[in-house]
Structure formats: structure tokens, C-alpha cells
């Protein structure tokens, strides 16, 4: 039984943080470590674009479903999906109506969950399972049963979305949510499936002189961050202080075999590597 400590009007439990202000930077530093537990390190997270893949319908979705099905038994995979054009439409209407930022964040997740249901319907016969957020720890059960969990990609910030820098739009989107899902479970690699070959110096849909970036470190990328990004900017900012994710890869899901090759460890699309363990 831990010791209770009194004497200053409060009742404390003895611990290394007893009586401490958790705001004190000196106290926070005591909880730092280079040896953080990796809970499920050998799992790969695959994020599938909403607008880039789902909104194109079966021509784009079916081949990816097949590649995911074929990967069964070879890789332990968790899948997440983006929301796509319906998210943008939701945000447009909500902004026009003057819905507060947290209210917008509360709304958008529904569109991503809808895409997760689509994907699960297509993949169920190959062992997928759509996971409600509350079933967080059942992920190990599904993986051990050889199944492919489809997680909710948008993080649960909801009404409590922090005020963004520069503009009303929530910044904690599905790419970011999937990144944190991988990070908290100690996963080392994430593969995002989009409709471009990866990162470019500019948005290749609008600039013909955009140059493809095949391989870059997070450190280099942070110095030359393009204005238009294929992934949430918040993902990269958070990665800098993350401890586990080492490799984020973006592949073109419209080209057959790219996802499979990425799962095999090939450097296709864009590979972003974090070299230093800590930012």
C-alpha cells in the first residue's frame, strides 16, 4: 500500500510527482526517457486517401482492396481511411454557418467513418474488422487472429479541437490521427496510399514544374517544407517530437503493385525517414 502524506491540508499519495506542479518544466523533464515502451512495434499502418482514392470509386478502390487482401498472412496491418470530398463539403458549409472550430472538428469524423464502413464491407471476407474507438486494446486480439483492423482515422479531439494557428479550420485531420495511432502503439512505419507518387516540391496537380522527392529525411524536409502538402502539416510537426515512427512512405495507389512493394520494404513513391530518435 502506498503511503499517504498529509500536513499541508491536502492528502497526497507518495510518488515521484507528489506535491509537484505538473506545469513546472523541471518536473516535466524528470519524466523524459530514451527507452519508451513500443507496444506493437512489428505492425504497419496503412492509410488510404479519401479524396485521392475513395472518391474515385471502384476503379481505384478495388485494386487496393485486392493488394490488402493479398498481404494477409505476410504482414500485420492496421488500416485507416480519409474522408475525402464530403469532409471538404462539410467544412465549407460549417464555416459559412459560423460553426466554431471545435464544432467543425466534431462533424468531420462521420465522413471518414463512412469510408471505413465502405472499406470494411469490401474487405470483410478477407478478414477486416471495423474498430470502434473504445475497442482500442482489442487491436492485439484481431492481429493475433490474423485479421486486419480498420481504425477510425480522425483523432477524438472533437469539440475540444485546440484553436488553430491562422484560420478556423481544424488541423488535426485523418493523416495526423493515423500517425498518432501508430506512434502511441510504438509502430515504426506508416504507408499512405494516395493518387500521386508521393511528395513534390509543389502540388503536381497545379504545377507542371513540380519535382518529385523520392527520399528525404524529416530533418531535411523540415527545412524545405513545401507550401502544399499531400499529408497534414501537423503530422510532420508532431513527428519531430515523436519517439517510435521511423519511416513514413507515400505511394501512388493508382499504380498497381505499389502498396505491395512498399509493404515489402521497397523504396517506392516517397520515403521519409527520421534519423535522430528524437527531434
Amino acid at each position, binding site marked *: 500500500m502506498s503511503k499517504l502524506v498529509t500536513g499541508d*491540508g*491536502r492528502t497526497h499519495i507518495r510518488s515521484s510527482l507528489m506535491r509537484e506542479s505538473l506545469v*513546472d518544466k523541471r518536473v516535466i523533464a524528470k519524466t523524459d526517457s530514451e527507452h519508451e515502451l513500443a*507496444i506493437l512495434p512489428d505492425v504497419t499502418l496503412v492509410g488510404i486517401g479519401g479524396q485521392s482514392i475513395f472518391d474515385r470509386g471502384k476503379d481505384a478502390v478495388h485494386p487496393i482492396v485486392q493488394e490488402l487482401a493479398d498481404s494477409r498472412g505476410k504482414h500485420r496491418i492496421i488500416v485507416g481511411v480519409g474522408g475525402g470530398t464530403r469532409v471538404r463539403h462539410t467544412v465549407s*458549409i460549417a464555416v459559412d454557418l459560423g460553426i*466554431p472550430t471545435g464544432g467543425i472538428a466534431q462533424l468531420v469524423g462521420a465522413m471518414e467513418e463512412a469510408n471505413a464502413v465502405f472499406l470494411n464491407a469490401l474487405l470483410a471476407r478477407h478478414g477486416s474488422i471495423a474498430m470502434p474507438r473504445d475497442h482500442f486494446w482489442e487491436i492485439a486480439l484481431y492481429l493475433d487472429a490474423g485479421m486486419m483492423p480498420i481504425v477510425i482515422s480522425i*483523432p477524438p479531439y472533437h469539440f475540444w479541437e485546440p484553436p488553430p494557428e491562422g*484560420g478556423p479550420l481544424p488541423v488535426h485531420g485523418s493523416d495526423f490521427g493515423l500517425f498518432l495511432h501508430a506512434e502511441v502503439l510504438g509502430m515504426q512505419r506508416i504507408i499512405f496510399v494516395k493518387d500521386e507518387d508521393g511528395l513534390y516540391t509543389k502540388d503536381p496537380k497545379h504545377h507542371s514544374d513540380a519535382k518529385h522527392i523520392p527520399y528525404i529525411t524529416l530533418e531535411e524536409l523540415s527545412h524545405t517544407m513545401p507550401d*502544399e502538402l499531400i499529408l497534414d502539416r501537423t503530422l510532420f510537426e508532431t513527428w519531430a517530437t515523436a519517439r517510435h515512427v521511423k519511416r513514413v512512405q507515400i505511394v501512388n495507389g493508382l499504380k498497381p503493385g505499389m502498396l505491395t512493394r512498399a509493404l515489402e520494404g521497397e523504396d517506392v513513391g516517397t520515403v521519409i525517414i527520421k534519423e535522430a530518435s528524437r527531434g
Partner: protein
Amino acid sequence: MADRKIIDSMLADATLTDQSEAIRNYRPILMMPDVKVIKIGGQSVLDRGRSAVFPILDELVAAKDQHKLLLCCGGGTRARHIYSVASDLEMPTGVLAALGGYVPRQNARMLQMLLAQHGGIFMLHDDFEKLPLYFNLGCIPILTGMPPFGYWEKPGKGGRIPANRTDAGVFLTAEVLGVKRAIFIKDEDGLFSDDPKKNPSARHIPKVGASELLAMDLPDMVVEQIVIEYLTRARSCTELQIINGMISGNVTRALAGEDIGTIIYKDT
């Protein structure tokens, strides 16, 4: 290859990472601007037990017919114990945040039991949209202060204690409701130049701007650092008031709008 089936809208073509020109005129509506969002401190109030908690509840109950009160609970020493053990076991920040959520929820349930006869009602984050109902029924809704980020809390720079804890949740609750001032009931007269419990020469700061406060780079503060950062970008909740709940009458005065304790305001 099939084209993207796009719904036309002002953001249809913009990358969502972009801040479009069409949203410059954005003015958020105020959902429930007349609610008093009040934090009851964990270590500072609840861990002191009856002698500290009962007088504060008496003042809140006395005010409940004049004000819509939304109470949010802090964690306190049990949360510190959880963070300490979890950190020793090398748990990631997101797990600490999920674990840290249990204690303020316990505290909220305790307050609900104490306030049940006065309409105290425990609510979960998922009940948030029922707030108008609770107020129309004359209830005092009680919510955890912890925001619902849980496993999705960002890993921090210098340590593993989650940056968004119960102060952050209280601020964010006020911000989305469109409430101008969030009230934090603690056991100090507000903000000091250092922790007054450890440094007796620490000076009281009655009023300070958020960016001014960040520039002071104090080693310790009475509210979470991230809340001050959020305050610089707030659209609705532009003031935090920290009051000493150990002094009788302070809660009543703060509810009446008096500038007691410390006011931290948006100065950007």
C-alpha cells in the same frame, strides 16, 4: 482511371492544409455564451477534502439559479501517482493521457454525488450536445476537465506528461461554447512569479497578457502552459480567471464578474 467524384464547395480544390481566402470572413457563432465554465482544482481543492470542497459547493449552489454553471474537475495527487508510475514503466504519452483521464472522472462523479440534491448531473464528453437540456432542467452538469484526446495526445518535447490536461480541457470547453471567461478555482490567489508553495518571495500577478506571460518564461505557472498558448489564438474564450477557493466569498465574487485573483487575457 476514374476521376475524383467531387462535391463542389469553396474548399473542394484547396488542400485542407491550406488556408483559403474564402474563409477570411469567418466569424464563429457563440453557442452558449452565458454559461459559467468553472474548473474545480484536483490537487488544489478536491484533495483537501470536505473543509475545502463544501464551502465552494455552498457558494455554487447559492448561485445556481442566477447562472448556468458547468463544473469541470481536475485530477490531483492520484493523477500524479498514475503519471509517475506510467512514466516509470516507460509508457508513451498517449497512454499517460488515457490513464490520466480516470482520476478527474472519479472526481466529477464525487461532485455529482455531493450535488445530486441540487441537480448535479455527471456528463461524458459524448453528452456535450445535451447541455441545453441540462440547463433548461436547472441542473448543474459536471464534466471531467480532461479533454478527450486520450491515446491521441501528442508526444511532448521535454517529457512524457501530456501537455493537454484538465486546464486545457476547461479552456477548450469554454472556447467552443463561446464563453468569454473561464474560471479556475485553485488554492492560490492566482498567478505568481514562481510556485508560492516553494518560493515565499514569489510575487502575485493580478493581470497579465498571454503573450506577455509566455515571454516571461516562468519556470512554473498556476495553469498549464499550453492553455496560455491556446489563449493567444482564441476566438471566444479570451480571459482566464484564477481564484483562491480557500477564501470564502471568492467564488461568488468571481461569478458576479469581479476581477479578483489573476486575469490572464488574450493580448494578441
